[in-house]
């Protein structure tokens, strides 16, 4: 029991242990625990991502199958999500950016559904993994940077040259802008993974304390409260990731300050 991250004294024989980080272990869906995980292995991560894809398919394809003029409940939800992100792209990035809407909507839906599905007890949360969020953030970063140069050529570098500032401090500002630009993918990815990891770990810690009879009511209350908070976080983090993507995209399309 050397590597237990957080533990209590054993309560009964076998040893009370709780491992708030165990929920983040990636393991093969079939076969023994500890089997090697190759890039193609069907893991729990793959399973929960696939479930997110299936849910998106269900909501956006099956629920809109009727093409009802007066939408039903699920079709309303799908249309609301569509309208919500479409308006966000239009408002934040501009009308000329709606052609990138499908990409942004893809990111939003993946994060949203992965976050919410991760709230199912004993689920695995793909978006708590830096590998996942870093790929998402890097994809946004690279796409935005390449798009910025393709659309504006060298003028894209004007993003770092703040012409509204006095000439003397522009180089300093340029350096700061450059650093902040390259920090973007880092903060973009760690914000999402960090929020999800923290929330789920705290849930597990509270759940672990529920093993101790004396404080279990309090612990259950804590789990309930944190769970409510996590429902909020699940949506807000998807929202934040998406709106930041829109903001970065706006910088690429209109680099002038």
């Amino acid at each position: 029991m050397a590597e237990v991250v957080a533990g209590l004294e054993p309560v009964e024989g076998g040893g009370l242990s709780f491992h708030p980080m165990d929920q983040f272990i990636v393991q093969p869906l079939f076969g023994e625990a500890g089997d090697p995980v190759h890039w193609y292995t069907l893991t729990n991560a793959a399973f929960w991502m696939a479930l997110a894809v299936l849910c998106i398919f269900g909501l956006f394809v099956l629920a809109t199958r009727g093409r009802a003029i007066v939408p039903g409940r699920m079709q309303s939800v799908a249309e609301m999500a569509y309208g919500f992100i479409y308006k966000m792209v239009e408002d934040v990035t501009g009308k000329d950016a709606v052609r990138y809407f499908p990409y942004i909507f893809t990111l939003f839906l993946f994060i949203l559904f992965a976050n919410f599905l991760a709230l199912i007890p004993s689920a695995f949360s793909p978006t708590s993994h830096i590998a996942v969020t870093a790929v998402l953030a890097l994809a946004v970063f690279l796409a935005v940077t390449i798009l910025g140069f393709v659309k504006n050529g060298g003028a894209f570098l004007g993003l770092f040259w703040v012409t509204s500032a006095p000439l003397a401090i522009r180089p300093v500002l340029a350096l700061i802008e450059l650093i902040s630009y390259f920090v973007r993918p880092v903060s973009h990815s760690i914000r999402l993974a960090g929020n999800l990891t923290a929330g789920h770990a705290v849930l597990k810690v509270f759940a672990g304390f529920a093993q101790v009879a004396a404080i279990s009511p309090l612990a259950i209350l804590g789990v309930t409260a944190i769970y409510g908070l996590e429902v909020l976080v699940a949506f807000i983090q998807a929202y934040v990731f998406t709106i930041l993507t829109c903001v970065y995209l706006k910088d690429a399309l209109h680099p002038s300050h």
Partner: protein
Amino acid sequence: MEPIELEAAGMCVDSYGFAVGMPQLCADWFGNQIFWLLLALISIYLILTRLALPRMTAVLAERSGTISNDLAAAEDLRRQANEADAAYNKALSDARAEAQRISGEARDAIRADLDAAIAKADEKIAAKSAESEAQIAEIRAGAAASVAEVARDVTGDIVAALGGKVDQTKIDAAVDARVKEG
């Protein structure tokens, strides 16, 4: 739980299968997650662009079209209702005027008939009263003549009774004078 051979477990979990540090940072699993992530993203993108978004855009466009059509139809219906209302009011006032005209005509006709009848009756009454007056005058003249005759006879008789001599001519003259005075 049986300890797992360390070589098989890799460096992300300990020999009991518990997490070592933060599993999120375990590089052994990066490839797997990235592969499935890309697959998931591509699937979602294809689902959206091939199936969901065209359908939803079509539905939304159709809905806004339906709504504006319905609004136009409602506007049209309201215009028709207003027209019908105006036509109804016009018919009502026409009918009212017609009724007034007819009743006026009837009244005039009745009045004309009445006037004619009254005039005729007046004429009859006048004729009758003239006739009556003539009769009355005749009766009165007759009565006066009778009075004079009676008076002559009575006077003659009185004169005779008093032992006078009856002079018919004088008596007539005296009676006529008296009747004329009377």
